[in-house]
């Protein structure tokens, strides 16, 4: 009886947590005139989505976001993985101490905004997806390093020893044994980096132009000047969450492979 009650309570709590996001989804599917109605689903239309792509060039924004978010992960990972690995293996000053090192790399982005803007203008990198990707790479690096460090620590050291006596160099052991074994962690870190870049607004606004605007910039634009276009905003937010959901499924794939370390009984 207590069990049933507590499960009911937990379900209710889940609903409360999910309600805002469900309501956004609902609003994106309802004609604009009925946006503020209190009925759950008065009518269903895909017009908000269509208009978002037709009138607001949301397709370009979406593609831009995918390019910079994926690009920053692709650039950051080859740097973060060896760094995290080095941190995990040479345990100088302990876990928290290493975090302290990374923390100093996490400056207030707003303090970097202007210097980077000026630097980029002189280098001709403003209004460029590549330039934005580079900034996101720099932002991602300390976070990815930290996350990966945790996964690399979980890889038994003997595995490297085995690979090295089997004929691999230290780097070879890292690439051929440690990286594949830590694959689920790398996938998780990649998703985190993708989210950080996907969600970033400040640099996207400052360094971008109409051609290179990303999803957050587009969402902001929908909320300003001519009043809030709530239906389109809802459609945009729904689409913005989509890659996060897809990324989660991508991680699940690695889980299904059931890679446990399992080298000891």
């Amino acid at each position, binding site marked *: 009886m207590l069990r049933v009650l507590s499960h009911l309570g937990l379900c209710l709590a889940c609903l409360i947590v999910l309600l805002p996001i469900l309501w956004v989804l609902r609003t994106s599917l309802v004609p604009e005139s009925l946006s503020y109605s209190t009925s759950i689903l008065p009518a269903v239309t895909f017009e908000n989505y269509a208009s978002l792509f037709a009138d607001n060039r949301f397709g370009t924004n979406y593609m831009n976001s995918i390019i910079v978010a994926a690009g920053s992960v692709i650039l950051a990972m080859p740097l973060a993985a060896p760094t995290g690995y080095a941190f995990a293996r040479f345990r100088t000053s302990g876990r928290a101490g290493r975090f302290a090192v990374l923390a100093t790399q996490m400056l207030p982005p707003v303090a970097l905004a202007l210097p980077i803007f000026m630097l980029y203008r002189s280098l001709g990198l403003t209004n460029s997806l590549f330039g934005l990707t580079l900034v996101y790479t720099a932002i991602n690096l300390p976070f990815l390093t930290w996350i990966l460090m945790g996964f690399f620590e979980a890889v*038994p050291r*003997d*595995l490297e*020893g*085995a*690979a*090295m*006596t*089997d*004929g*691999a*160099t*230290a780097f*070879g052991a890292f690439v*051929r*044994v440690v990286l*594949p*074994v830590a*694959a689920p962690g790398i996938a998780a870190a990649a998703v985190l980096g993708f989210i950080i870049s996907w969600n970033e607004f400040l640099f996207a606004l400052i360094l971008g132009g109409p051609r290179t605007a990303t999803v957050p910039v587009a969402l902001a634009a929908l909320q300003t000047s001519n009043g809030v276009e709530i239906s389109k905003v809802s459609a945009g937010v729904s689409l913005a969450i989509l890659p996060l959901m897809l990324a989660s499924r991508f991680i699940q794939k690695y889980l299904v492979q*059931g*890679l*446990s*370390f*399992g*080298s*000891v*009984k």
Partner: protein
Amino acid sequence: MASITLENVSKDYGSGVVGVRDMNLTIEDGEFMIFLGPSGCGKSTTLRMIAGLEDISTGRLRIGERDVTRAAPRERNVAVVFQSYALYPHMSVRQNMEFGLKMRGMAPADRAARIEAAADILGLQPYLNRRPAALSGGQRQRVALGRAMVREPDVFLMDEPLSNLDAKLRAEMRLELIKLHRRLGRTTVFVTHDQVEAMTMGDRICIMRDGNLVQVGKPLEVYANPVDTFVAQFLASPQMNLVEARLNGNAGAIELTSDILSFTLPRFLHAAFAKALGRAVIFGLRPEDIHAEPRPGAVPFEASVVAIEALGMENIAILALDQSGKRELSARLGRDFSASIGDRLTFYADVARMHLFDAETTRAFPRGRME
């Protein structure tokens, strides 16, 4: 050809922590050498230094004629069997065994042939396409062994490879490893803290303690002539009984006296122990040299039975010699021995097999070959 020579090898972890101190040892080509000692004695560190997985602080290491003190692990042509097995979890059994061959650039056909041969010997054929996670502990152990075998290395290094197996499997694998060593004839270093493995598997034992090499020799020689009380106690279970005593008399008749047992030394031991005359010594007697029935030359003594560990195939009796029960001896008695706790009985100490140690240094007075 693939002997291993350690010359003054030390491992210094810095800030006063020394892993291995000034070790000198030559392991002959084809020899099966055991490193034995309590945890933290430096035996695994030494093995890892031979493998190249741990830097050598000072000293030189040679494998065969080659100085490999600073060589990378892959340049040493050694194979390690880890206590944790360290199988590559993302590879099948076949890929695990293939990895080392691939890294050395062997042709696919040759690789396959080697893997087949090893899998046949180890009974791994049915599992070649499985991942390590899908294997039992004993099977993983075999894969780890197979991965080392296919490489046909100059040297096998095994770091407590049997310690994760249960008693039955461990006994089986012990015999299999001995047979394998006979078949392959490769130099092997085997680290263990198990005295049964140490006594039965190796050509020689190297006993370590606190980073120091204490004694090297053939198992039965070490057992018969331990250099100090540490080796005497470590190499057997139950341990050798040690009693503080004193040697008095002259070359004609040497008397050993202690709180509990006093007797005249057998004549043939006079020469060996004469230099201990008048000194504080420790008298050592193994549990199997205390008997419940009289035998020629054995010294009778009275003791109370404190406990009996009945193992089925034999009985270990714990005997108290004085009233306080503080001085205890253990005796390895036949399986037919029976007594009640508290019984006061006569036992017989076969003092011809006694050991003698200096009370101050704990070093043995060598008694020469056991009669």
